[in-house]
């Protein structure tokens, strides 16, 4: 697939829960786009993120300039969520009627839900909120795909593949393969490419 070059800055929020590979996914995505000649700014906070907290990366993909590492409220073009509750959380701050959302459907319960004190929104409630707060959304079980491939954490790469499948950003399989080869062993690259392809076919 030939991807069209961006002429204006695109704002993407990548979100999930500590330990889901959020930071790895944002780095891989940004690496691909830097190689393609874009100026990418990633805003991130980590430190306590491994301790089960919400994690969020802001990616600004610009044809020409460094942007604020924080996206203004209501300013996301695309949201990629590794966990549905976090998708909702990000939507309520950075969403707008034009936003596109890709969300993993597999939930990770916060401690208040685990202990029975709070309720996790039902899938129906989540779908209704997604429909009302986005222009378009994709919801599928990326964790199940990861588990089929041997590791649930691959859901982050499944989501990247799905993002490529939507054509919302100028990324493709060749770019991902090049990026993943920079750091991974051949076996790791192969499994990551499988996860990417599985995601790609889910949103295309």
């Amino acid at each position, binding site marked *: 697939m030939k991807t069209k070059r961006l002429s204006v800055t695109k704002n993407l929020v990548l979100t999930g829960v500590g330990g889901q590979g959020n930071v790895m996914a944002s780095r891989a995505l940004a690496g691909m786009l830097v190689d393609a000649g874009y100026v*990418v700014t990633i*805003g991130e*906070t980590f430190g306590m993120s491994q*301790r089960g907290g919400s994690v969020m990366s802001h990616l600004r993909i610009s044809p020409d300039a460094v942007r604020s590492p924080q996206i203004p409220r209501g300013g996301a073009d695309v949201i990629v969520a590794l966990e549905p509750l976090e998708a909702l959380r990000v939507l309520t701050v950075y969403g707008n009627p034009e936003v596109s959302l890709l969300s993993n459907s597999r939930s990770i319960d916060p*401690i208040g839900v685990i202990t029975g004190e709070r309720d996790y929104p039902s899938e129906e409630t989540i779908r209704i909120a997604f429909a009302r707060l986005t222009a378009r959304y994709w919801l599928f079980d990326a964790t199940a795909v990861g588990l089929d491939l041997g590791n649930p954490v691959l859901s982050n790469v499944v989501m990247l593949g799905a993002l490529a499948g939507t054509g919302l950003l100028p990324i493709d399989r060749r770019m991902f393969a090049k990026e993943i080869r920079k750091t991974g062993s051949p076996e790791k690259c192969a499994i990551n490419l499988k996860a990417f392809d599985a995601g790609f076919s889910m949103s295309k």
Partner: protein
Amino acid sequence: MTRLLAPAGSKVLFLGNEAIARGALEAGVSVATAYPGTPSSEVIESLAPAASKRSLYVEWSVNEKVALEVAAAASFAGLRSMAVMKQNGVNVASDFLLHLTASGTRGGLVLVSCEDPGALSSVNEGESRYFAGMLEMPLLEPADFQEAKDMTKWAFELSEAIGNVVMLRSVTRMSHASGNVVCGTLPAKARKAAFEYGGPIMDSQTGPMISTPVVAKHLLRRQKLKAVCALFEKSPFNRYTGPARPDLLLITASACWLYAAEAVHMLGLQKKVGILKLGTTWPLPPRLVSQYLRKARRILIVEEVMAFLEENVKVLAAGNPKLSEDKTFFGKYDGTLPFAGELNPDIVADALVKIFNIRRCGLSSSYQEEARKTAAMLPPREQTFCAGCPHRASFWSIHNAIALDGRGGFVCGDIGCYSMAALTPANGFGTMPTLHSMGSGTGLASGFARLAPFGFKKPVLTVCGDSTFYHAVIPALINARHNRADITFIVLDNQGTAMTGFQPHPGNEVNALRESVPAVDIAAVCRAIGAKVAVCDPFDLSATGSVLTDFLAEKDSLKVLILRQACALSPEKKGKKTFEMKVDESLCLGDACGCNRLCTRIFRCPALVWDRKKKKAAVDEVVCAGCGVCASICPRKAILKSQAASAAASGG
């Protein structure tokens, strides 16, 4: 090859902290030191693997003051060096820093302070910029990633040119953000170290490195500032963008420049607002700043936390009637921007909306209402101790021992993941009514324990982590011993600087360069101080509880309990279970038990789930780390543990 050593000309996506590290390498840094602390740790973490390839010595120092001293020694010997720390680390280093700025330096010496406006990973939002003014050292603040690299490199040159330490200040949104950087050349040759000290006392190149004669050395430091100002006047790190005669001059620095530029763009104010972005923020270059102050009658200063820049701009303007007459200054003092917390493009945009009395186009009210309704139903993701975290077990025992003792004892807290014990709702058994700086828990405990003559009779406990013990606790512990403060001091020894990413500390047998080194034994240090010392595995609730009960009952002595168990996230432990856990549903009585869901609601392990359908507790096998502790807390003995297959295979 590490990314940090990418060849000249390559375009790399660097974390702000990696850009700082690369800049230091391009400057030919020979010695880099630090004490870990978010958001600063990645500078040394990225430099350490490059050390062997670059003739570079890297160390995790015991604390920030020693880190700066080690770096200064290299500078005195003519090498380029840097010390890296988080904002409050500068306070720790500040006593030495006061004297260092007086003695001056030789090889370029850069103090990197990575600060945390909004306290995203801190228990303070301290400001080190005031140290620059107070100790008269130049301050540089990068506003993007390329600048973080280029400015760091230049900071070494500047330090060497003036013979004094230079401070480079970053913030979380710069240090932990990433962006494009074009790499420069790495110098081929390393310097040789030599320390000369036989020359005249006022000759900082050949004389002794001391702060006396104090007044003469102070005047010399003032002289150096003149040279700094001259260099700052023509620095490319200060830039103006906007119309020749703006309606409003916006003065800013650091990541705030990116927020300001975004806000101006968002509101379409490019023809009205001019932005003066300063990279050299102390001392302000007077001619340059005056030149732009003359352009506008309204001035807005955008910066995070304190009004440091605003104050300095106003002082400069006050010195010249032409610059202060008919001017309106907007910033923190007039309430346009907040004095606390971090900024973002929205906060700056809101300030501009107020000043220009305009409207900001936004989302429809129906969309906003929908978003508000959705947000209200979302359960928060509270931070809690991880599954298998030794701190949960430790605080469980501490809480129960205090309750059993019955005299209302309490714990003076300290800095680490265990600070979460101060968050009562997140941990039903937390007991930590004080929490300040590293080591302060022991100092406070030492003080509380001497209040008996004033009628204060509660038993006093204090905790600290293993890395904190070496960093700042030892003097307070000696104080407790010397002044006969009767305290129970608990070391939560999880065998590494866990919270910031398992950097080694003096208790480990490896250092930053992965060399094998002798470990300093906490128990031996405490015994040498004269404390009664016990060591327990916190997962053994009964042994830990009985030592604590004895310690609380024992009067007139300093008692130390070392609770030793590696962090659940440590590389050697992660993913390895000692026990398989399950709930016997025939034994768990659920809400009929009378325990009031002790295991899920109070113990609050992320692996202990309240099963809504069965109305009983259950173990989430995926999340469970297999520590086995919950088997000891159930009054019905309904939580069962069995040796995990992996643990049995490796002999447990």
